């Protein structure tokens, strides 16, 4: 009895030792990949930062108002943010390769799926970034045009422009990563249609006088009194 127990224990520990001996090299490979990945990610982060400095991304992002948004959200400047993103994406990629090196089939399957998905995530992020740039640029342009034309609610007009562009961008980004594709498409179509319908109804029923004033301003009647009044409300540049 005692011999059987000892033999069984011996066999169990022997198998465990064999498994450990087989597993340890994989674990070591994984750790090496992690460390190498960390170094590669650091180098790429540094290179990205230099490239961004070279092509004056900070100036471009300031130009488009992205820097203001980032600073308001307590985030680093655009170049720093993107280089950090590169660092984490690259290192995360190496972490997955390391996990893959362990040789666990289920994990390998999931890692494979993730790598297939990676390009779409990148494109979606680019679409979001571009959309944010466009939203800020055009909303500021709308604000300035509305303010200089002395239109009431200039900020509301600017906010509306920003909202529409961001809505469109988010819908495009979600479409890109194929996340609930049909739901996103239908939601966007309904939301966009509802906004336009609401605007049309609001303008038609409540803004009749405003429309009248706008048309009056765009196509002024040639009455001397009106011209005189307009002169009094504006400083001639010449």
């Amino acid at each position, binding site marked *: 009895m005692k011999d059987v127990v000892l033999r069984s224990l011996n066999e169990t520990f022997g198998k465990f030792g064999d498994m450990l001996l087989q597993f340890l090299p994989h674990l070591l490979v994984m750790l090496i990949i992690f460390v190498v990945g960390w170094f590669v990610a650091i180098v790429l982060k540094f290179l990205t930062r230099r490239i961004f400095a070279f092509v004056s991304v900070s100036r471009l992002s*300031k130009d488009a108002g992205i820097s*203001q948004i980032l600073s308001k959200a307590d985030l680093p400047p655009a170049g720093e943010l993107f280089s950090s993103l590169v660092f984490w994406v690259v290192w995360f990629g190496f972490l997955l390769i390391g996990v893959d090196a362990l040789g666990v089939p289920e994990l390998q399957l999931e890692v494979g799926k993730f790598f297939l998905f990676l390009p779409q995530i990148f494109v979606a992020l680019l679409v979001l970034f571009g959309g944010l740039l466009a939203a800020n*640029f055009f909303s500021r342009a709308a*604000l*300035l045009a509305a303010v*200089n034309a002395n239109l009431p609610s*200039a900020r509301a007009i600017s906010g509306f422009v920003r909202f529409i562009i961001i809505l469109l961008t988010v819908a495009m980004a979600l479409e890109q990563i194929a996340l609930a594709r049909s739901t996103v498409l239908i939601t966007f179509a309904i939301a966009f249609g509802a906004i336009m319908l609401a605007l049309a109804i609001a303008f038609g029923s409540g803004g009749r006088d405003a429309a009248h004033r706008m048309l009056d301003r765009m196509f002024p009647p040639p009455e001397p009194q009106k011209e005189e009044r307009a002169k*009094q409300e504006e400083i001639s*540049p010449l």
Partner: protein
Amino acid sequence: MTTYGLELWMTTTAVVDGFKMSESFLGPRIQPAAQFGQDLTGTIRQVVGALFKCLEMHESYWLQRTGSEALPTFGFQYDVALEPLKLNMKSILDNFRSNVEQLVPVLESILTPATLADIQKMVALPDRQFRCPDELWVKTIYEFAAAYHHSAINRDHLLQALTPLYRARVSSFILENAKAPVAKLDERFDELGQVFESQKPYLIDRWSAKAGGDR
């Protein structure tokens, strides 16, 4: 380059290249018919845009200069008769107050907090006491010039943001000098020029500072 831009470019290039400079009285400026009715924002974009561009082109010249010299004047000096102008100051000032309030997010990217705070104090002044002091106006223009140089925001947007402030400055000038004779106006322009000159170190400071570094 627009007409205004060409004029500014010619003048500044002549100064920088060491041409002999002088002044002459040519009478009232006649504007081409096509320029009448042009909007204020468009004119500011052309004039101030050209001026800031010339500042950038010739920075190596003016950054090292101090002081100014009087120019020799030719021809007969005479006063220009000005036609009386009726302005609805209340409407202009109300528009200015509303415009500044709406433009705060844009002005924050261009002006220093101290200058913006001074402008916001000016917004709160009642109509009769409304004044835009020379020092504040000069600081505002210098900060716009530096922001243009550093591309703090899109340059065209920056120039458009100056329009409401220009309206305020002109309104203040009119309120201050509504009944002043033409000779007095010339004195006021000279005083303003002196403020621009005395505050030049501030412009150099902001111009040479790293973009947004000391805001």
